[in-house]
């Protein structure tokens, strides 16, 4: 059997008892569960080890020490950082060391070499693609961790109080505004996503906007409806496909690059929507990942599952 958590939700009431000096918590409270009295009887056997006052005094003392140490640390830290900043090259200086052959090449030859007019998109998806690959996996890691923590495993369900929530869809103003707003937001997101190599934006910005749109949708029309539109399977499938596509596309590019093989994907004419080689599909993949990551964050926080 799996270990039950050592301290139950009932713990807080028991803790209050301990505060008043009635019980001692030096023994593990193994799921007093539905019979708090019986558990208390078991706890009663042990003598209290410390009184509440003595203990809280001790804690207060140690936190005071901690605060003094932390204040000193902060002061030293701030002074050092300000001194360092004072010794950096000037802000807005055109002759700063950061303006070197690297950034010049990104700008001057970036359009030719990557096919992207937006230098930032070209840089993060072509020159420094390994970073960006890692970055999308940061999102993936985070979504898995949130799933681990927020999924309610076998314990009591948490949607007990759903009825008490405000139903936004009944409110005329909210419903009307959102009916107008959500398509516009989604459209804007798609535009940013697809135009990432030509104008400001790209996978991360577009995905975040799309994700925000989906969140508004599921907020107003309810999680039930949203999860009917995007069932958990679909979300998983999309995330899986986009990340796998991203990995494979980039590994093709890395492999050909490192082995000096020809790269067979055409770059197209810079400035057109179908240009930039792999950049646009990659932007779309990243956008899907970001969008569904944000959406799953929301769903996990809202109701504990996708």
């Amino acid at each position, binding site marked *: 059997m799996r270990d039950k958590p050592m301290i139950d*939700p009932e713990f807080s009431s028991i803790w209050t008892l301990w505060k008043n000096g009635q019980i001692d918590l030096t023994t593990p409270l193994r799921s007093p569960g539905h019979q708090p009295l019986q558990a208390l009887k078991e706890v009663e056997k042990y003598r209290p080890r410390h009184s509440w006052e003595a203990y809280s005094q001790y804690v207060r003392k140690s936190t005071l020490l901690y605060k003094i140490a932390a204040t000193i640390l902060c002061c030293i830290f701030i002074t050092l950082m300000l001194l360092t900043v004072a010794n950096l090259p000037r*802000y807005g200086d*055109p002759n700063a060391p950061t*303006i070197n052959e690297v950034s010049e090449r990104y700008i001057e030859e970036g359009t030719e070499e990557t096919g992207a007019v937006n230098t930032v998109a070209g840089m993060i998806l072509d020159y420094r693609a390994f970073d960006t690959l890692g970055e999308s996996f940061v999102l993936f890691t985070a979504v898995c961790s949130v799933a681990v923590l927020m999924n309610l495993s076998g314990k009591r369900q948490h949607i007990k109080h759903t009825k008490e929530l405000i139903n936004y869809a009944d409110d005329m103003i909210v419903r009307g505004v959102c009916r107008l707003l959500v398509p516009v937001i989604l459209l804007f997101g798609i535009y940013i996503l697809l135009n990432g190599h030509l104008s400001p934006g790209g996978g991360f910005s577009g995905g975040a906007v799309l994700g925000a749109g989906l969140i508004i949708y599921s907020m107003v029309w309810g999680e039930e409806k949203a999860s009917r539109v995007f069932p958990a399977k679909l979300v998983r499938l999309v995330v899986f496909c986009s990340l796998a596509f991203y990995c494979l596309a980039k590994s093709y590019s890395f492999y050909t690059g490192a082995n000096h093989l020809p790269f067979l994907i055409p770059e197209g004419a810079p400035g057109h929507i179908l240009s930039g080689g792999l950049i646009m599909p990659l932007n779309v993949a990243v956008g899907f990942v970001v969008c569904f990551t944000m959406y799953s964050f929301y769903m996990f926080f809202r109701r504990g599952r996708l």
Partner: protein
Amino acid sequence: MEQLFGNLLYNYEEVVAVILFSIGFCILLFSRNLIKKVVGLDIMDTGVFLLLASRGYIAGRHVPIIVDGITTAEYYINPIPAGLVLTGIVVSVSVSALMLSLTVRIYRTYHTLDVDSLYMMMSVSKGGKQ
């Protein structure tokens, strides 16, 4: 002295960034509420990003999007910091989502967000089963 504080006033953007970082750091260290700690964490991160982005800014130059056929590097700002900050923002939102979910879980178990109380509960129930 002159040399020590050389560019302090010119680098006002960076100074603000450092101050923001320190404020976030202080919130993280001193705040007892877990949610406020997460807010402090976010402020700390944005401070770092402001520092990074302001290193890429060059006075009077433009967004690094090649338009109108101008391809001289003197017309555009440095694109590298912007790309790095983009990475950083995504990392920061992932981390804060993770921290918030930890917060919810802790609240569900201990019914408090106060770090001192958590610490006390933890040290009081010492020597428990594994």
